[in-house]
């Protein structure tokens, strides 16, 4: 083993896109190899949990953790990697704020299983339902069990840095890796603990090139119903609920630039306690109506406000889950 600092990356409850995004940094990946020893990165190389367990505490310099905490296995690994890492980074939306897997916090686990295994869209001819442990002649087979709700990494262990995005933009990942290497070389200092890295402090509109005016919204529409979408005008002003005003900058307004509304993957701006609340208040503020009936009619244009406002942030919101998920 060389004396290069150790690097780890783990994939918990998430889609895996973050891992792809790391690869998308191109040649930069070679810098990682040049500067680090890969101690643990299941998607890239074979490694066993007991190898990690065998390491000394704090032996890994940098761990990029992507994914939320949904199972007892996720939770175990989170504690383990926390112990073994000097710097633990919540990498990507799932780890920082729960992301789409966190939306499952609106439903009880039983319902999630029913949908996954027993709805018409599921090809499950033998009606198999997974169980936590199963006896076979060779012994007992076990599966990780699910927690009632998904949690973000910081809700389970202490986190040093957060890197938002679904996934984080490659240019931002590259910049962060550069920074760490510079720190290693004594050329730079780490930001204060708890910082969001690889992103901006303002919101998507800050980087959005579209023209913006004073807003008066008389109807909310789906983007496909606005034809043609004005390519130069603020998407929200055209009636499409664009989450850009409340979403942290850093992606270079990737979606609005190409004619799609921002759906909020970079999470809330710096210091914001509840992401969805910012969108509720922002959208409601520019609704152009005074009578409850009129307001209702306009708001009907947002058929699923909870989904619209919390697509990425539900697990990290103030309420974190619906009563259905936790109340008996």
């Amino acid at each position, binding site marked *: 083993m060389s004396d290069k600092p150790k690097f780890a990356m783990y994939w918990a409850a998430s889609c895996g896109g973050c891992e792809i995004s790391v690869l998308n940094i191109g040649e930069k990946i070679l810098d990682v190899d040049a500067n680090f020893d890969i101690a643990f990165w299941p998607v890239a190389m074979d490694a066993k949990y007991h190898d990690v367990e065998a390491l000394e505490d704090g032996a890994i310099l940098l761990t990029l953790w992507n994914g939320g905490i949904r199972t007892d296995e996720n939770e175990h690994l989170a504690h383990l990697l926390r112990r073994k890492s000097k710097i633990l980074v919540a990498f990507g939306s799932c780890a920082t704020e729960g992301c789409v897997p966190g939306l499952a916090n609106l439903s009880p686990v039983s319902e999630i299983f029913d949908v996954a295994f027993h709805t018409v869209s599921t090809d499950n001819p033998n009606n198999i339902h997974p169980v936590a442990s199963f006896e076979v002649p060779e012994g007992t087979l076990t599966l990780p069990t699910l927690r009632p709700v998904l949690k973000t990494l910081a809700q389970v262990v202490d986190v040093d840095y957060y890197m938002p995005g679904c996934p984080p933009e490659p240019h931002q990942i590259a910049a962060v890796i550069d920074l760490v290497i510079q720190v290693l070389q004594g050329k730079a200092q780490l930001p204060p603990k708890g910082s969001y890295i690889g992103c901006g402090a303002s919101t998507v509109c800050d980087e959005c090139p579209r023209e913006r005016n004073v807003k008066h919204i008389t109807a909310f529409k789906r983007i496909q119903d606005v034809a043609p979408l004005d390519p130069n005008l*603020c998407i929200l002003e055209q009636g499409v609920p664009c989450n850009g005003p409340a979403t942290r900058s850093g992606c270079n307004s990737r979606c609005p630039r190409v004619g799609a509304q921002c759906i909020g993957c970079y999470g809330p*701006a710096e*210091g914001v306690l509840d992401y969805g609340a910012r969108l509720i*208040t*922002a959208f409601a503020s520019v609704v152009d109506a005074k009578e409850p009936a009129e307001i209702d009619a306009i708001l009907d244009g947002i058929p699923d406000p909870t989904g619209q406002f919390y697509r990425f942030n539900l697990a990290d919101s103030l309420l974190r889950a619906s009563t259905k998920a936790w109340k008996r």
Partner: protein
Amino acid sequence: MSDKPEKPRVGVYVCHCGSNISGVVDVEGVRDWAQEHLAKDGVVISRDYKFMCSSLGQELIEKDIKELGLERVVVAACSPHLHEKTFRTASERAGLNPYLTELVSIREQVSWVHTDKAVATEKSKSLVAGTVERVVYNTALEKLKVPINPNTLVVGGGIAGIQAALEIANGGFHVYLVEREPSIGGHMAQFDKTFPTLDCSACILTPRMVEAGYHPNITLLTWSEVMSVSGYVGNFNVTIKKKARFVNEELCTGCGICVEKCPQQVVDEIYEAGIGHRKVVYTPFAQAVPKYPVIDAPNCTFFKNGKCKACEKFCPTNAIDFAQQDEYLNVEVGNIILATGYDLFDARRVTNYGYGRLPDVFTSLEFERMCNASGPTNGEITLRDGKTKPKTVGVIHCVGSRDKNFNNYCSSICCMQSLKFAHLVKERTGADVYEFYIDMRTPMKSYDEFYQRVLDEGTLFVRGKVAEVTNAARAEHEKGKLIIQVEDTLIGKQRRIPVDMVVLSIGMEPRADSKQTGQLFGISCSADGWYLERHPKLDPVSTMTEGVFIAGCASGPKDIPASVSQGAAAAARVLDKILQKEVELEPIRASVNEAKCSGCRICNNLCPFNAISFIDDLAITRINPALCQGCGTCVAACPAGAINGTGFSNEQIFAQIDGILTLAPARSAGVGL
């Protein structure tokens, strides 16, 4: 959430308010609990005192600030609207920025409204905890000082407005007096005699009107209306529409020839209360100020079909100007007095009294005009035919007043006005007069003596609210009469009293447009529509909006002496402001963190005071602190959390929520976690 500042030293002071608080709240319990449980939030001292607001109570706090080095003060006592200033001033005396002191209302919100001691004490603790947690995040603030424009706007040229304008003008400052009718004078100019002295209304009013009309410090703007108001105390900008008079005021001498020659006559719904006529070019009455007539364009033959021009033909000074247009004036004033007066209750709504259906039922204002020597009957009291003198007259009190179906309040002048009518009928016709009343209310100076005089004159009093006035006779002696059906409650029997004439003493109502006018000036109305005073007893001429005052019947029914007093009182308040030369504005304001502002422009249409502007070059939003009124709507709206509001920051409110929920019971609802 930003990090909690270093733990400042907090003092908690719980007031007994005599027994007002301690009768229901365990004050010592709250004190001890705060000392023990809020120490973690920085509470270093917690005390109680009989009367915190007394000078001894205040000194107690001042001493602690100095000796214990308190950095935050929480006083649990009465409503901040009462004593916030007292305690903040006390803190300031001891060298602590006043905005680091907060009041918790455990009197108005606890002891006065709850009875269970244990529950009230718990609630008090929660409220104290909330404010302690909040005050930690309070920051030192400085008031903003702005100069006061010495000009004043008075809206409404009735007796209250005239009085206010004269007081200020005599004090040496300029007044714009705006009146929407062609002349000042208001309702008082319509009356014949005033109770209880029976002074001729015109005789006592006219000199005041003339004085206002010629005062060098008064710009009289009649036939004018305020269109918009912007700005804030000390610096209002007002747009006034001067409606086209079609008479050139520079040339007009007020000779009246045009009025005389005008061939077109219409019913005068305003000044003559609908029972008299006026010409289409007119001054409402002989003593009008200013003397210039106006042309009532919608009724004018020339404006309708391009013919006539009689007035123009005969005008000796060529003052008629059919081409005149509405003019808009912009004036800058420091203070505003609203003396917009009242409307009269529409008696047609009480259908059982037959007004509008039965000709010889009159309203009080119609009757006033009839009694007036310059009125449509030259002062003769007659039936609707304009000739017949009544032999019996019934005066009905409380029409539309003290009645949940109409107006729930007492009109305050209607007893005295009705007694005055009885006297006038007796004096001028010798007819029998019946007065129908629920309660006789004659509380002011010389009022009850007047009641006795009317009793002495032989007026017949029936105590009972009239049930109906009908022309359906049941017996021969009722035929051709108006029958007043009533329970004489003093004998417990129903009576039917045939009379020739009925006078309905109608009540006062807020102006039909009072709500819109209120919105224009940023003041609010009570549930029944009268303007709301800052304090009904201690501050009756101020409003919640700094720099906007009210006088006269705009805030509720009043008689003439009360209206005059209020006009003078409002003027005194304005003079006080003007003489201070500058005004301190509350430092509750919003500001934008420009690094975080994304320029999304969500907040751009939220500020009614135009304090928010968008800086195109930088693509960010800014807030003008002098225009910001501190409502916090933009703070709550900013999707990036880039706007901060002093005094009510997110951190302060979040901490307060946490604090008041400290004692929330941790109940188990069977959460399967």
